[in-house]
């Protein structure tokens, strides 16, 4: 049995803005073991990125963890000082961002930016760091790595820059790699290449990955487990097959209905989820999805449902499931 790498327990996080408190995360719990690949899906503003950033303490200073614990690789992240946090960032956990076009500093060479993180976290001297950087560039599938080291970001294409970002992220062989929508800004063919590369690298290096995306196709390919987030809450959590073939939460079902399928007839329209996302400044009292849910009941508007365990490791927070459980219980009695 592999070791528990990341354990988030009931994390609550708020942004304190001039307009008021925005409860970005409400009771988030995630467990990841070494080598796990977790997908976090959800629409914009659902708290996917915030969850990931809070593991690295990368949030702006208006965002504060106000409850729960985050344990990563033997560190209690909540209690760590900025100074200690710096030793972990880029070393034990690293991140790839959404937009490779702006994520690299335009005035320094690729080599400089890769070596920087190597020199920061290891004892390698300049020459060894350059060798390692060259090695990393070939690892992420960049041709003529020696030449690339001397080039500037603007001389590379978007796909290449994302590969460079991956190289930077992998430089110190992190235990956990967070990929924050790594392919959203790339065109489709490059997307496929980058994902393939990430799967390859995962198998070679054996690190864990958190894949943040709103593309369910990516999740199906890469991940073992999926957390579906809605309005700062994990509404459904489980193994990938369970989520895709046995979705329990109405939001997850809605998401799956809105994926275009090649097998569908031409005239079948996609089914969108009606309504708009929740206003996080004034979240509804009960289940946040209730106002958009087709099967909304009275209780949904009043109280937040607890998690129901459907199968081993498959959880969902929906009153419908609680009701079903209660009815089944009733029949037995």
């Amino acid at each position, binding site marked *: 049995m592999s070791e528990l790498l990341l354990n988030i327990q009931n994390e609550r996080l708020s942004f304190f803005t001039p307009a008021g408190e925005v409860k970005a995360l409400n009771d988030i719990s995630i467990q990841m073991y070494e080598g796990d690949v977790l997908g976090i899906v959800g629409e914009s503003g659902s708290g996917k990125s915030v969850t990931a950033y809070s593991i*690295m303490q*990368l949030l702006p200073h208006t965002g504060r963890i106000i409850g729960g614990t985050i344990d990563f690789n033997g560190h209690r992240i909540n209690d760590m000082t900025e100074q200690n*946090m*710096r*030793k*972990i*960032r*880029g*070393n034990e956990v*690293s*991140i790839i*961002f959404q*937009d490779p076009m*702006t*994520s*690299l*500093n*335009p*005035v*320094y060479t690729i080599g400089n930016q890769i070596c*920087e*993180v190597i020199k*920061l*976290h290891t004892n390698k001297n300049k020459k060894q760091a350059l060798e390692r950087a060259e090695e990393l560039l070939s690892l992420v599938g960049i041709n003529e790595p020696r030449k690339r080291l001397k080039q*500037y970001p*603007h001389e590379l294409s978007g796909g290449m820059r994302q590969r460079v*970002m991956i190289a*930077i992220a992998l430089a110190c062989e992190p235990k956990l790699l967070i990929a924050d929508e790594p392919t959203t800004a790339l065109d489709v063919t490059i997307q496929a290449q980058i994902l393939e590369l990430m799967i390859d690298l995962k198998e070679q290096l054996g690190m864990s990955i958190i894949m943040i995306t709103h593309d369910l196709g990516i999740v199906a390919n890469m991940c073992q487990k999926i957390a579906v987030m809605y309005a700062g809450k994990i509404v459904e959590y489980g193994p990938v097959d369970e989520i895709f073939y046995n979705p329990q939460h109405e939001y997850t079902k809605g998401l799956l209905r809105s994926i275009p399928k090649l097998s569908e007839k031409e005239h079948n329209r996609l089914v969108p989820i009606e309504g708009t996302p929740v206003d996080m400044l004034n979240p509804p009292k009960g289940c946040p999805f209730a106002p958009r849910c087709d099967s909304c009941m009275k209780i949904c508007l009043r109280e937040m449902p607890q998690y129901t365990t459907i199968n081993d490791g498959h959880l969902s927070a929906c009153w419908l499931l609680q009701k079903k459980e209660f009815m089944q219980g009733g029949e037995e009695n």
Partner: protein
Amino acid sequence: MVRYIAKRVLLSVFTLWLVATITFALMFMVPGGPFLAEKTPSAATLEALNQKYGLDQPKIVQYRNYMVKFIQGDMGVSLKQRGRTVSQIISTGFKVSAKIGGLSILIAVLIGVPLGCIAALNRGKWLDNVIIVVATCGIAVPSFVVATILMIIFSVKLGILPTYGLTSWQHYLMPVAALAFYPTAYISRLMRSSMLEVLGQDYMRTARAKGLSQFWMLFKHALRNAILPVVTYLGPLIAYTLTGSFVVEKIFTIPGLGNAFISSILNRDYTMIMGTTIFLAALIILMNLVVDVAYKIIDPRIKLK
């Protein structure tokens, strides 16, 4: 790069010629002449003087004569300061003005850049507000007011600094401070706004995710990107400041080029007007070229064409 610089130098020769020609034309449109003083000399004396300096010839001939001599490196003699050539006056004046101007720019950069960074890092807090208020005052208050206030405080009230001349290092303090005040304020404001923009960039987040300390994030990743607007401003600023400020030189009685520049116009000292104008134009052109090359060095994305 070399080709680019060669091209720019060639272009600047043309610009200088244009500046010289326009100045020449404007100069003679202004009524009066170099030999008219309170006591008007006799017609015969005036004629003799005009003949001596070639001012009796048609303007186009005078223009040709000046240009031919200029190309040979001779800017002529001053019409007002007898016996001194224009190049002599410019070189002695420039030495004085450049010393004071150079010091004040150095101080403006050394204080303005850190102040701007500090303000940006403390955005919205009291330190930021203090810096903004001081910088706004610095831009609003003209240098002669600053100079006068400094004089009142340090010379009149405290009696510790001399009011005129340039014989010891104490003499430099007030003129340099008065000259540095405005650019310091301007640079800190420029630096603050460009730093704020850079701090919000994605690559700063990447730098943070790498585990870099705030110091390195700022010095390595932010400063080099944020300094470009300051460099742009510095080009013309250096040219203007090195050639001296008439106001400050007048107040502290400094024999600088700024003084010579303005008085040459007031005196209709034609050769001096030409000499100083061309000198200033050449310096501005040179500084712009230096700025463009510096741009390329700071930001590799910029292409010099």
